[in-house]
C-alpha cells in the first residue's frame, strides 16, 4: 500500500514542505523479486540502513553453500532486509521540496480548501448575532473537520491544526484512515524539530521551505516504518 507524497501547508496557504516518494512498485519490486533467490539464507546479509543495493549483493555461488541455514531465521532476516531495501528505495526514488510551488501543490491545496469549506459551512449553525456570525465564518472554526477524500486511484488524508497548519498525505486508496498518523507527525516530529528549534522560522516567507535534515529524516523514517508502506 504505497504512500505517494506528503505535504505541509502553513496558515498562509504556502506549501512549506513537500515530499514525494517512489512507490517501490513498478521498477523496484521486480528487481527485488529477481534478486531474492540469491540472497536467501545468506547470513552475512544484515539489515543496515546505509546498505547499498548492488555492492553488497552476495554472489550466487555463495548462496548455494549457505542455503542450509535455518530457514525460519533466514526468512525473517530476509523480510526485514527486503523491507529496509525497499524503504531505502522508496526514499531515494522520491524528491524533497521540489513540488512546493507547482500546479500539483496548488491544485491539491485548492481541492482541500474547497472541501474543507463545504464540510465546515454545512455544519455551521445559523448565527443569531453579528458577533456570532463573525465567529462562525472565521477560517478556523471547529464545527466539522475534513478527514480525507479518495478516488479509485488514490486517497488523500488531511489534518489541520488549530493554528492553521495543514498536513496532507497521499496514499493508495485502500489505506486505512491515516489522520492519526498526521497528528502523530505533528506532535512527535514537527514540534521537536521545527517548533522547538530556535533556528526555524515561525512564519515562513514565500518560497521558504523546511529543509531541516533531522526533520526530513524523521518524516522518511516515520512513513517507511508503517506496515502499510512496504506491503
Amino acid at each position, binding site marked *: 500500500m504505497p504512500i505517494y507524497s506528503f505535504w505541509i501547508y502553513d496558515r498562509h496557504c504556502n506549501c512549506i514542505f513537500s515530499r514525494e516518494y517512489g512507490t517501490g512498485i513498478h521498477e523496484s519490486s521486480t528487481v527485488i523479486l529477481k534478486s531474492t533467490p540469491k540472497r536467501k539464507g545468506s547470513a552475512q546479509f544484515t539489515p543496515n540502513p546505509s546498505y547499498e543495493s548492488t555492492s553488497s549483493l552476495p554472489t550466487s555461488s555463495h548462496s548455494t553453500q549457505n542455503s542450509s541455514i535455518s530457514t525460519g531465521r533466514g526468512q525473517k532476516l530476509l523480510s526485514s532486509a527486503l523491507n529496509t531495501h525497499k524503504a531505502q528505495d522508496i526514499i531515494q526514488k522520491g524528491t524533497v521540496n521540489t513540488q512546493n510551488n507547482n500546479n500539483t501543490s496548488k491544485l491539491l491545496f485548492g481541492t482541500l480548501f474547497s472541501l474543507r469549506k463545504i464540510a465546515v459551512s454545512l*455544519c455551521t449553525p445559523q448565527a443569531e448575532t453579528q458577533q456570532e456570525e463573525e465567529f462562525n465564518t472565521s477560517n478556523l472554526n471547529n464545527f*466539522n473537520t475534513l*478527514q480525507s477524500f*479518495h478516488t*479509485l486511484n488514490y486517497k488523500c488524508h488531511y489534518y489541520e491544526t488549530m493554528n492553521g497548519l495543514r498536513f496532507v498525505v497521499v496514499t493508495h486508496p485502500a489505506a486505512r484512515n491515516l489522520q492519526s498518523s498526521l497528528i502523530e507527525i505533528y506532535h512527535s516530529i514537527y514540534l521537536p524539530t521545527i517548533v522547538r528549534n530556535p533556528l526555524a522560522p515561525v512564519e515562513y516567507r514565500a518560497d521558504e521551505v523546511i529543509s531541516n535534515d533531522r526533520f526530513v529524516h524523521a518524516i522518511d523514517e516515520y512513513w517507511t516504518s508503517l506496515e502499510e508502506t512496504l506491503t
Partner: protein
Amino acid sequence: MLYSIYITSRSGSLLYQKDFKTVNSPITKQRSNDYLVIASTLHGVHAIASKLTPPDAVHNYQKAKTLANSNRTGLREISTSRFKIFMNQTVTGIKIIVFASPDMDEARFAAIYDKIYEHYCNYVLKNPFYQLDMPIRCQLFDTHLNSVVAGCNV
C-alpha cells in the same frame, strides 16, 4: 443514515437538492445560493481530483471493485468527522451526490445510487414535461426518493 441528495447536470449546475429531516443530522440549513455554490464546487473538485492522480497511481482503479459505471478517476468519497459525501457520475455526465452519516460505506451507497438513478430515469426523464438540464421539480420523483431515504434511515 442519509442526510441529503444533490443531483448536478453535466455542466455542474444544480438540478436537485434536498435535505432530509433526519434525527441528529449535522447538516444545517443553508441559503439557497449556498447550495448552488456547493454543487458547483463539488463538480469542479471532482474534475481536479482526477488531475491530481499521482503518476504511480494511475492504474489503481483497475483493481478496485467499482460500480460498473463511469467514475474511474474522479472524486468518489469525502470523509469529514460528521458526515461523508459520496459521488458518482453516469456515462451521460449527471452526478448523483449523497451526504450520509460516517458509517455509510461504498457498497451501501452503490445500492442507494442505483435506486436514485432508476427513479431519476423513471420519474424525471420519462416525464414528458420535464426539460433536460433544468431544475427537477417532479412530485413523483420526490415521493419515490423519500421512500428510498426512509428505507435506509430506519
